[in-house]
C-alpha cells in the first residue's frame, strides 16, 4: 500500500485537491480571492510534493509505471499549472465558476499525469480522454462569448473524430499483436503493412494533440476562442505532456519500427515548421499568433524526437521545461493586457513600452526565448533539439529546421517591433498587474534566463533519462 501511495503520489494528490475543491464548492460559498489563494497554495503544495518521495516501479500489472524521469515530467506539469493559477488572477477574480474551472483543469492534469505513466493502450486512451473532455468544457468557459462555444464545439468534435481514428488504430494493433501493453509490444512488432497502417492511425492522435500539421487545424480556432487560461493550459501543459508520451511511446513501444517513424516524424516536422511559420506570419490576434507559433515549436520538438537517443528524450524534456516558462510568460502578459483593456491584437501593442516597460521586457524575453535567441533558455532548448536531431547526419533536414528559425524570428520580431519601435498615439494604458500575476511573471522571466545558463538542470534531466 505504501508503494501505491509513493508511486501514484502525484495522481493521488491531485485527486484529493479535486475533491477538496468539490467540497468547498458544494459547501459554503467562498469569495473568489480567498478561494484563489487556497487553490494557489494547494497547487504549490502539489508542486513541492512532486519533488519528494519519488520511486520507480509498476502498478496494476504494468498499466501504471513511473520512473524518476516521469516524476520530473510531472513536476514540470505541476509547475506549469501552478504558474497558470498565478498568472491569470485577473480573469479568475471575475469568474463565477472558479472552483469548477480548477476542478476541470485538475482533472485534465490528472489525465495528463496518468497519460505519462500509462503502461498500456487502454489506460493511455482513457487518460487521453480524461485530458480532453474537461478541456472542451474549459474552452467553453466564457459562457457569454460566441467564439468560446464555437471553440469548444470544434475541439470536442475534432477530438472525437481523432479518438475514433486512434481507437481504430489501437484495435488493429491489438488484432495484429494480441496485446495492449506497451511493454509487451516491441517483441511482437514485425513491421507488416497492417501494423504500419495501424501505427499511422495511432500517430494521428498524437499529431492531433500536439497539433502537428496537417492535423493541427483545430488548434488556432480553439486557442483564439477559449479563455486565455484554457489556451495556455492547452498550449503548454497539454502539449508538453503529450510530447513526453509521444517520445516514450515511440522510443519504447515502437522502437522496432524506428525507421518508419523516424522518416515519418521527420516529414511531419518539416511540414509542421513550415506551415506553422507561414500561418504565424500574418496573424493579428496574439492568441492565434501564439497558437501558430506553438505549432512551429512543435515542429522543433519533432526534430529532437528524430534523434532516437537519450539525447532526444532529455532535449525534449528540457525544451518543454523552457517552453513552459516562455509561453506562459507570453500568455501571462497577453492576459494581463486583455483582461484590463480587452485588447488582443498585435497592433494594439504598439507603443506598449512607453506605458508598460516592465511588461514589455517580460514579453520580449518570452518571445526571444521562443525564437531561440541567446542568452535566453530558448536558445539552449532549440539548439539541443537540433543537436539531438542532427545525430543521424540529416544535414538537409537540420538546415531546413535552422532556416525555419529565421522565419519564426521574423514574426516574433514583429511583436517586438510593435512593442518597442512603432509609434502610437493611443498606446495601451498603464496596466495594474495583479500581484500574483507579477510574481508569476517574475518566476517565468527568471526561468527564461536561468534555465539555460544553469547547465546542471539539463544534466539532471540527462541523468534521469
Amino acid at each position: 500500500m505504501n508503494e501505491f501511495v509513493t508511486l501514484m503520489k502525484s495522481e493521488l494528490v491531485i485527486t484529493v485537491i479535486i475533491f477538496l475543491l468539490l467540497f468547498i464548492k458544494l459547501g459554503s460559498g467562498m469569495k473568489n480571492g480567498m478561494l484563489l489563494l487556497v487553490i494557489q497554495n494547494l497547487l504549490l503544495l502539489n508542486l513541492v510534493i512532486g519533488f519528494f518521495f519519488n520511486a520507480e516501479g509498476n502498478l496494476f500489472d504494468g498499466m501504471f509505471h513511473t520512473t524518476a524521469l516521469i516524476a520530473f515530467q510531472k513536476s514540470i506539469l505541476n509547475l506549469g499549472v501552478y504558474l497558470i493559477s498565478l498568472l491569470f488572477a485577473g480573469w479568475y477574480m471575475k469568474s463565477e465558476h472558479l472552483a469548477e474551472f480548477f476542478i476541470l483543469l485538475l482533472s485534465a492534469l490528472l489525465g495528463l499525469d496518468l497519460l505519462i505513466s500509462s503502461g498500456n493502450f487502454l489506460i493511455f486512451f482513457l487518460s487521453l480522454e480524461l485530458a480532453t473532455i474537461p478541456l472542451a468544457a474549459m474552452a467553453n468557459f466564457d459562457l457569454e462569448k460566441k467564439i468560446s462555444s464555437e471553440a469548444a464545439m470544434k475541439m470536442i468534435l475534432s477530438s472525437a473524430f481523432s479518438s475514433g481514428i486512434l481507437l481504430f488504430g489501437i484495435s488493429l494493433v491489438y488484432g495484429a499483436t494480441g496485446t495492449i501493453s506497451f511493454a509487451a509490444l516491441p517483441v511482437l512488432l514485425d513491421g507488416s503493412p497492417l501494423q504500419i497502417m495501424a501505427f499511422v492511425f495511432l500517430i494521428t492522435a498524437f499529431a492531433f494533440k500536439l497539433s502537428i500539421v496537417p492535423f493541427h487545424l483545430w488548434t488556432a480556432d480553439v486557442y483564439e476562442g477559449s479563455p486565455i487560461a484554457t489556451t495556455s493550459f492547452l498550449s503548454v501543459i497539454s502539449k508538453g505532456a503529450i510530447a513526453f508520451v509521444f517520445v516514450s511511446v515511440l522510443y519504447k513501444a515502437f522502437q522496432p519500427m524506428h525507421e518508419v517513424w523516424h522518416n515519418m516524424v521527420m516529414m511531419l516536422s518539416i511540414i509542421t515548421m513550415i506551415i506553422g511559420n507561414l500561418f504565424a506570419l500574418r496573424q493579428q490576434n496574439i492568441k492565434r499568433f501564439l497558437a501558430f507559433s506553438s505549432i512551429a515549436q512543435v515542429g522543433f520538438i519533432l526534430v529532437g524526437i528524430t534523434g532516437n537517443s537519450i539525447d532526444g528524450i532529455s532535449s525534449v524534456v528540457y525544451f518543454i521545461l523552457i517552453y513552459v516558462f516562455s509561453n506562459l510568460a507570453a500568455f501571462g502578459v497577453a492576459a494581463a493586457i486583455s483582461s484590463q483593456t480587452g485588447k488582443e491584437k498585435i497592433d494594439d501593442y504598439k507603443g506598449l513600452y512607453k506605458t508598460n516597460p516592465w511588461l514589455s521586457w517580460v514579453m520580449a524575453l518570452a518571445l526571444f526565448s521562443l525564437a531561440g535567441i541567446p542568452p535566453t533558455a530558448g536558445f539552449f532548448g532549440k539548439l539541443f533539439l537540433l543537436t539531438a536531431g542532427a545525430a543521424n547526419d540529416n544535414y538537409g533536414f537540420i538546415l531546413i529546421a535552422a532556416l525555419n528559425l529565421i522565419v519564426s524570428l521574423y514574426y516574433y520580431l514583429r511583436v517586438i517591433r510593435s512593442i518597442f519601435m512603432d509609434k502610437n498615439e493611443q498606446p495601451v494604458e498603464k496596466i495594474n498587474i495583479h500581484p500574483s500575476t507579477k510574481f508569476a511573471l517574475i518566476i517565468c522571466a527568471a526561468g527564461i534566463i536561468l534555465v539555460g545558463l544553469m547547465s546542471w538542470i539539463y544534466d539532471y534531466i540527462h541523468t534521469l533519462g
Partner: protein
Amino acid sequence: MLNATYIALIPLLPLAGFLLLGLFGRKYFKNSSGIIATIILLVATVLAIYTAYTYFFEVGKVHGVYQKLIPLKYTWLEFSKGVSIDMGILLDPITCMMLVVITFVSLMVHIYSLAYMKGEERFATYYSFLGLFTFSMLALVISSNIFQIYIFWELVGVSSFLLIGFYYDKPSAVAACKKAFIVTRFADLGFLIGILMLSFYSGTLDFNTLIERLTSPGSTELSTALSSSFLGISALTWAMILVFIGAAGKSAMFPLQIWLPDAMEGPTPVSALIHAATMVVAGVFLVARLFPIFALSAPEALQLVAYVGAISAFLAAIIACTQTDIKRVLAFSTISQIGYMMFALGVSKYGGENGLGYTASMFHLFTHAMFKALLFLGAGSIIHFIHSNEMKDMGGLRKLLPITHITFLVACLAISGIPPFAGFFSKEEILLAAWQQNTIIYWIGLLTSGLTAFYMFRLYFGIFWSKAPSLSDSAHRKHHGEGGFAMMLPLVLLAIGAAAAGFIPFGNFVSSDGKVLESEFHLQLSIAPVTFGLIGIFIAMWLYKKQNDKPDKIAASINGLYKLAWNKFYFDELYIFLTKKIIFNLIAKPAAWFDKNVVDGLINATGNTTQFISKKIKGVQSGKVQQYAAYFLVAAIAIAVLFIYWWK
C-alpha cells in the same frame, strides 16, 4: 664618419615640424609657425649638405667607385623570410644629390612663403603641410627598400593633394587636387603591381639585393623572371613597365600629364617646390634608382621610357607655346623638361661612356630644380604683385619688379640652354647622349629645345616688356613693393644657382655605375642646340617684345593646330569621357542598380514570396470543422499509403 642619426634627422626634423604645427599650430603658433618651420628646415639643409659632403668626399668612394651605403635599416613589416618592408637609409650619389636639392629648394620656399603667405588664415597649416611634404620627399629619396619608396611616394602624393587644395573654398582648386591625386593614384596601381611582381621574382624588396639579383646574368631569379613571359614580353620587362607607369604618373609624363597643369591651383611657392623642383622628378629618380635593372635586364622597358619622355617633352613644349596663364606655361615647361630627363635615361646604357645619359639626366634634374624653382618663385612674385595669373594682365613690369626681372631672365636663359647658364650644360649633355644612341630622339630633343626657348621668352617678353604697365599697377607698388627681403633672397640665391650650377663636374659624382665619368665637351654638337635656342628667342622677341597682332594672326593661320595645342590636345576631355561615360555610367551605375534591384531584390523577394504563400494558403484554415476532419482523414490515409507502399 657618417652618423646615421644625422641622416635620419634630415627627414625627421620636417616631420617633427609637421606634427608640432599640425597639432598645435592653429592655437599656439599662429604667427611664429613660419619662422619655426624655416629654422627647422635650415637645420635639415645643413645636415643634408654635410651628409652629401661627407659621402662624396669622405666615405662614399671605395676603390674609385661610389658605394651604395646602408647606414640604417629597420624591419617595419615582414611578410615572409627575406621579403619585408624595411625602413632604412640608402646612400648613394643620387640620394645625396636629391637630399641637397630638396632641402635647399624647400628652404627657399619656406623663406619665400614667410612673406608670400603672410596674413593667410591657415598659415600654420600651410607650414605644417610643407613640413609633411618635405619629410615625405626626403624619406622617399633615402629609401633603401622598394616598398619604402612606395610608402613615401604615396605620402608625397597626399601632401601634394593637401597643398593643391589649400585654397579649399575655390572649386577649381578642389577639382585640381582631386584630379592630381586620382591620376597619380591610378599610376601608382601600376607601380604597386610592378613591386609585387619584382618581389615575387626576386624574393626581396631591398633595393640593393633586388638590383643585384635581377642583374647578375647567372642568377636563378633573373632567369625565371626572364623566362616567364606574357604577350611575348618577359615578366621582368612587364614589371619594369608597370613601375615606369608609376613613375610616369608622378612625373606627369604622357599620357598621364593631365594633372600637373591643374595642380597650379595651389599656392605658387608650393608649385615651385612640389610641381617643379622635387616631387615631379620623383619618377625620374625612381627610374634612375632601378636603372641597372632597366638597362641590363629590361631594355625594352627602357626604350619605352625614352619614347615616352621624348613625346612628353615635345608635346608639352607645343602646348606651352599656346598657354596664357603663366603658371600653366611653366607647368608645361616642367613636363617638357622632365621629358628630357626621362629620355636621357631612356637612351642611356649601363656603365662607362654609354652611361652618359644617366649622368646627364641627373645633371638636368639638378639644374632644372634650380631654374624651375626660380621661375616659379619669380612668377609668384609677379602674381603677388598683379593678383592675376593671366599674361594679358601683365606687361612692362621690368621697372616695377627689377630683381624679379633679372632673376627671371637668368632662369629663362638657363632653361633655354644658353651658355654659360646651367641649363646649357645639362641639356647639351642630354642631347649628346641622345645623339650617340638614338637619332630620332635627338632630333625631337633638339626641336624641343628650340620650342623651349621660344615659349620661355614669349613669357619673358610678355611679362616684362610688351605693353606699358597700367596705372593701377603703379599704385600697387606703393603699398606692396616687391615683396621684401624674404621673397627676394630666395630669388637671388636660386638665380646664382641657375647661373653657376652648370660648372659642377657632375660626371665625377653621379654616374650609372658609380665610377667617374669623364664628360667630354663636344663643341660641334653644342652648336645646334644653342642655335635652335637663339632662333627661338629671336622669334619670341619679334613677336612679343612689343604689343602687336602678329601672334594672333599666326595663331589664326594655323587655327586647327593652334586650337589643338591650346586645348592640350583634348586629353582632359578624353579622360572625362573615360571616367564619366565609361566608369560612371557603364560600371558604377549598373553596379549600384544591380545591388539595389537584383541582389537586394532577391533577398526581399524571398521575404515577399513567403508572405505571398502565407496569404495564399490561408484558405486551408477555413474555420469549418468538417473540412478539418476531411484534411485529417486524407492526411492519415496519405501517410499510411506513403509509408506502406513507398517509403520503406
